[in-house]
Structures are given as structure tokens and as C-alpha cells.
């Protein structure tokens, strides 16, 4: 069964076809990797999926329900969580408060003015932090975290509304290699445990090929290959795009979110 069915998704910036007629499905419970060189259109895809960017054409169905045209907050309420290529958190709050905010929002208590926000859903938030091994830093100001930790915090936040599908744009960017593997392993465990689906992008091919169930390759806005990791690894067109430019394992590149 598919959680997400995308058909003919397109976005043009002036003359640039950032995303051009893209079709794919995300199966329930799978980890689908979206790879491609810088500027391939991965983030643009993500931004359309969660409603942050209006698509120029196409359809996005979440469990058979059309979600194109919805605001990001509406898409989120339907069970789509997301992390950003350049992490976005509430920097004036502590780590645990960031997670609490997401839970408060999930329970639709954003407008309430009587309780203290700091004492609401503290246990639930703490559990989520434990899940991403951030419980030690629960009370640190979020603005003071190391970059890799912010990424893990984002994952905890994204899990706060019991999502059915997670969109993770370069979740491991800025992390050390062993941290990356750990984070993806963690994600894979969560996926298995909770039965959610994940669509993620990642520049480190080792991480991609060892964790993804399937891999989709985007180049200049078009899907050029979609299949099992072993198939993609052998695909000549993919190899020429990557090996030809030598850009494959470039970990330094953190593009626009």
C-alpha cells in the first residue's frame, strides 16, 4: 500500500525547471532515498510535498487524499512531519520546550493561556528526546546546541504528532560519519517500530545504499532512475552523473533549504 502518491509534480523558477513532471510513490513502512547532485531539485520537491511551495502542476495524494494547495500547517495536521536542510528550531527555547511546542500544537492547545507551557506534556517530550538520545541536553537552550544535535532535535520534533510519513531533507548533513550512520540506523528503527514511511535526501552514498529500501535519482528536476539500491548502484546513467562529476561523496555541500 502507498502512503504517498505523487504524479506529474512540477515547479519552474523562471526558465529553470527545478522539478519537472516527477512521479513516484512512497510505500507504507519504507525508507525511500531521494538523491541527486546539487541543484537537482530535491529540496524543491520537499517544499512542494509539505505545502511550503506552490506546485506549478501535478498531484500529491496522501492516503488517497489530495493535499496540493494546503498550507504547511494543514499538511502537518494530516500526519506529514518534516526536517529542514538548514535546521529550523525555536532558538529562544530549551530543547525540551521545542518538542513540547510540537506536542502542544498536536493537541490543539496553542491558544490556551492558563497553564504553564513548560509543564505541559513534559514526559511525552522527554520520551521523544530519549528516542533520539538527546535526553541529557533536554534543558539546554536550543540556540547553544551543536549542529548535529539540532538535527536530532528536529527528528524528535517531527515525531511529535505521530506522523504517518516523514520528510527528511539531509538529516545527517553536518554530522561526523559515525554519527550519520547512527542517525540513519535510528531512523530505520523508528520506521520499523512505528510503521511510518520516510522520504529522505542524503549526499553520503554509503548511508544511502546501506539504509534505504529504495532509491530515486533526480537530475535537473527529472527522475532518471528509481529502484532497489543494488539496481541504482549498477545504473550507468546514475554513475555517469555522479562519477563523471566526482561530486558524489561531497559532504561539505549544504545548499539552500
Amino acid at each position: 500500500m502507498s502512503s504517498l502518491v505523487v504524479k506529474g509534480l512540477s515547479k519552474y523558477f523562471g526558465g529553470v525547471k527545478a522539478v519537472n513532471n516527477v512521479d513516484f510513490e512512497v510505500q507504507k513502512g519504507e525508507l525511500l532515498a531521494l538523491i541527486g547532485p546539487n541543484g537537482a531539485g530535491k529540496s524543491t520537491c520537499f517544499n512542494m510535498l509539505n505545502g511550503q511551495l506552490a506546485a506549478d502542476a501535478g498531484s500529491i495524494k496522501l492516503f488517497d487524499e489530495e493535499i496540493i494547495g494546503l498550507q504547511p500547517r494543514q499538511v502537518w495536521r494530516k500526519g506529514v512531519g518534516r526536517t529542514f536542510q538548514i535546521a529550523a528550531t525555536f532558538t529562544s527555547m530549551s530543547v525540551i520546550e521545542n518538542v513540547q511546542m510540537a506536542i502542544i500544537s498536536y493537541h490543539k492547545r496553542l491558544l490556551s493561556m492558563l497553564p504553564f507551557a513548560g509543564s505541559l506534556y513534559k514526559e511525552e517530550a522527554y520520551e521523544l528526546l530519549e528516542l533520539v538520545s538527546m535526553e541529557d541536553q533536554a534543558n539546554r537552550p536550543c540556540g547553544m546546541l551543536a549542529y548535529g544535535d539540532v538535527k536530532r532535535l528536529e527528528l524528535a520534533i517531527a515525531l511529535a504528532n505521530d506522523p504517518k510519513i516523514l520528510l527528511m531533507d539531509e538529516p545527517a548533513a553536518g554530522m561526523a560519519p559515525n554519527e550519520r550512520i547512527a542517525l540513519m540506523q535510528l531512523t530505520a528503527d523508528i520506521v520499523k517500530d512505528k510503521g511510518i514511511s520516510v522520504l529522505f535526501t542524503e549526499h553520503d552514498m554509503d548511508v544511502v545504499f546501506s539504509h534505504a529500501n529504495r532509491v530515486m535519482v533526480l537530475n535537473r528536476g527529472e527522475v532518471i532512475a528509481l529502484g532497489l539500491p543494488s539496481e541504482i548502484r549498477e545504473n550507468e546513467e546514475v554513475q555517469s552523473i555522479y562519477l563523471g562529476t566526482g561530486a558524489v561523496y561531497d559532504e561539505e555541500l549544504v545548499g539552500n533549504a
Partner: protein
Amino acid sequence: MDFLFIQFLNGLSSASSLFLVASGLSIIFGVTHITNFAHGAFYMLGAYVAYTLTEAWMGAIGFWGGIIVAAGTVALFGALIEIILLRRIYRSPELFQLLATFGITLIIEDLVIQVWGAEDLLGRRAPGLDGAIDIFGQAFPTYELVLIALGPICLCALWLLFNRTRWGVLVRAATQDRMMVSALGVNQAWLFTGVFTLGVFLAALGGAVQIPRDAVHNAMDLQIIVEAFVIVVIGGFGNVLGAFLASFIIAELNSFGILLFPKISMILMFIVMALVLVVRPYGLLGKAETHARTALGNVVRPLAPLTRKAKNWVLAALLVFLILPIFADDFVLNVGSEILIFALFAASLHLMMGVGGMVSFGHAAYFGLGAYGVALLVKFLNMPMEAAIVIAPLLAIAGAIIFGWFCVRLSGVYLAMLTLAFAQISWSIIFQWDDVTGGDNGLLGIWPSEWASNQQAFYYMTLVIVIAALYAIRRIIFSPFGYTLRGCRDSLLRADAIGIDRLRIQWFGFVLAGSFSGLAGVLYAYLKGSVFPDYISIPLSVDGLVMVLLGGIQTVAGPIIGAGVFKALSTIIISHTEFWKIILGAFIVILVVAFPQGIVGFFLERFGSKEEDIAEEKQ
């Protein structure tokens, strides 16, 4: 028909001066990203200096030479200010820059009075151009024709400067990408100085050419700066052609508006601005800012609940306020009530800008609406105090609901300008609608009920209401709603991604802040027994900003302490000197440059616990 054409020409000639001022403002903003509040003061200074020079020098050469020399002198003065002051604050948050330049405005206003006196001055007519020509049988002053030509001439000159000279091309490059220009090996500091000088020259020229038309007076600055802001916002910040278009629109609007709607002519331009902003949030020809900045900079220190030590301090302060009437006389109690009222005003502004990230340059609007709410209820319905205190804030709330709906759609300096515009709308309605509001004379005879009529009883009533309101504000800040509001300030992207409806939250926050401000205004009306248009004016809005910054934006207690210190100081200083504006202006400038973290921030940094400890204490 002929009459309409003359009116059209009148509009054109005002447009030129407006364009000179607005284009200068726009150019400065485009390159340095400073929103120069002092621009109106430079305009005024241009007019005064030109007055002196043209009185002293004879003939046509003397007249035009005087005007040019006046503009040049003021431009040099502007350059000096840029070098001494602005260079220190280019990296500061927008709000600080706005405030610092407002401080300069205050200083110049007072200096002008010291040098030229408080009387209006009538300038000399331009030699050879003091006649009139016949247009469709109507006499039209020749000088106005010169002014009409001046606008397009300056537009062409600016175009040539920016497109045909190396310096101009560099300035344009800097408008697009400041990093690139420094990469080209250009001395950025002097480029900024040059641009600022040019902008000030244009403003001063705009003021100088006015002298044969209008009297020179010491309130010209605020009048023109508000119009110039409106024009720049309509045209798009940093866009000279936009400023030209908008000057034309506003000048014609003023010219015909006064015929069609004499009572509300002043509001028209604000209505046009609000409409333009809703359709095109960056003005007619403006583009979205590439590097959107937060008006207050990033806040890293989380708000923490009170520590035990802090709680003791609060209790001690409360105790002092409680027993104050035992040993204080009526004057002190009166000042005490005023301090309490302004503490509420400052706290409500802090809720909006510190917590909500929406910097308001027009927070006095809600204060004034609350005060006038009382005055009208008393005047027309003879309503008793107990009822009026509850009902009058509704006027402020209504204002905040309407104004807030527009404001939350913008951010940063555009939002600040729009709040300023709405405050001016409210001010002009009150100022122009004499029959109901008493206009300039205000409304008198607003007395508290019998039981609260002595100073002591009124003080206690104020104390109870203000403490309750401050407690409510504090609770709101730490409630889920307050956190949500803060979240929208920290990261819109994240807020959106966890299901927060930003517009609704900020709108609601805006209205809450407005209603507390309105409550403060209500109390103030009863304290003073009268209301005046001052209660809604720009200076009062700025006082509020100064109180918040003085105390420190990063804590809940800061603004309250800031209000107390500010009011106490101003009461003392005003009674000892007539240079109040110079002192206040210098005070603001020093505050912004040297103590941007405010009193409470300063003490926390010095003696307080580090971030880590605060976090620990929260557990």
C-alpha cells in the same frame, strides 16, 4: 475644470519636495539598510539654514546660492553624524537604528529652537520668480512652476549618477549585494558615508526650496518624515523611481483630498498605503528583501521563570509600592500612579515586540484610543468610572483588531512603518474631528468616582489594576499561547511546520498587547482628568520603546523597570531644565550604542547566572 487643473499643478509642485526627501531616504535605506528617522530633521535644518542664508545674501545669485550652500552644509553635518554615530550601529538590529536616528531628531529639534527661536519664520520670495503667470485665467505663482520642474530634473540627475558614473554603479551594486562590493576592493565605509551624505543633501534641498512657499517651523520634521515614510513604503524601499511615483500619488491625493474630504484628508494617504501594502507587501516597485533581518536580532537567552532570589526582589518591590502612601505626599503618589501606568504600557509593548517580535512604532495608538474611549463615554454618556474602565478599552481593542490584521501581514521595518501609519491615522482623526474629540484642545473633566477621587485611593486602585494586568501578561508569556507567539518570532519555518497558524497567532498577540495598552490609557485619562492628541502621538510611542529598551528586552521584568526609571528620570529632569529633548535624544543614542541589552540585561550579564545555570534552575 480650470480650478481642478490648478489644483493638479499645486499637487505637482508639492510632489517635488516630497520626492527629494523620499528619494534620499530610499537611497540611504537601499545601501546602508538604515531607516533614517532623522531625515525629517535634516529637511527642517535645510529650511532653517536656507532661511538664514537667503536673508543675508542679496539677489537671485544670493537666493539660489543660499539654497545650495544650505543643502551642502546640512549634508556635511549629516556626513559627520554618519561617521561618528551610524558607523557604530550598522550591525545593530533595525529597531536600534530607528531609535538612534530618532534620538538625533530630538536633539536637532531642540537645537533649532535654541538657534532660531520657537516662532514661525517667513522666508524671502525668490527674486525674479515672485510673480504669477496666467493659466486658464487663474493666477499661478511662477515659483511653483520651478518646483514642478525640479522633481523630474532631480530624477534625471539621479538616474545619470547611478547609471553613468563609476560611483553610481558601485552604489547600485551595493544595493544588490553588499558583500560583493567589499570583494571588489571598494572601501565600503566611505561608500556608505557618500550615500548618506547624498541622501541628506537631497532632504536638505527639499527643505530649502520650501521656504518661499511655507513658513519654517520646528515641527516640520515629524510632518515630513511621516509622509516620506509613507511614500517610501508605497514606492518600495530602496527604489528611486518608486519614490517618484509615490510622491506624485501622495501629493495629488493631498491636493484633491483636501477639497473632497476636508475632515479626513490626512487619513487618505494612510489608507492608500495600507491598501498598497496588502496587495504588494514590498511596495509598488520594491522587491522582497533578500536578507530578511529580524527587527530585534536573534534572541538566544530563553525566558526563565523567576528564581527564588528574583521572587524575593519582586515581593520587596511590591511591598514598597504598598506602603508608599504612608510616607509619600500627593505629588509623589501622582508620579507613582503614572509610573505604574507606564509600566503597564511598556509591558504591553514588550508583549508585542519582545515576545511577539513585532516592533511597533505606534503603540501609543491603543493607549490613546483607550484614553479617548473614556473621555467619550464620560462626555456623551456620563458613564461612571467603574463601567468606563471596563468598556473603554474596547475602543483600543477594536483599533488593534483592525490595524493588527494589516500589520501582521508584514514584518520587520515594514511592519514598524505600518504601525506608525495607523497611529498617525488615529491621531489625525482625533486631531481633525473637533466636534467630537475637541481636536487640539482635548477633552476635559474626566474625574474618577467619589471613592477614588483622593490621590491615595486612586493610587491604590491603579496599583491593584496594574499589578493584576502585569501578572496576567506574565502568565500569558509563559502559557502555551505566549510560547507560540515567541515561536513565530524565532522561526516562521518551524512554526509553520508544526501546525501553527502564524497570522492568527500574531494577530491575536497584537490585539492582546493593544488591549493592555488601552487599559493603561484608560487609567491615564482618569489620572490626568483630561485627554489630548499627545496621548496618541509619535513621541509617546517612542517613549514606550525607550522604556522597553532601557529596561532590557530579554526579560519580562525589564520593561517594567525601564518604565519606572524612565518616568522617574524624566519627571526630575523636566523640572530642572528646558533642554529635555536634547537630553532624551542623547540618552537614547547612548543607550543604543553602549547598552543595547538594557538595565536588566546589563545586571544579568554582570552578576547573573550563565545560560546553563538558568536552564538548570528551570528543572
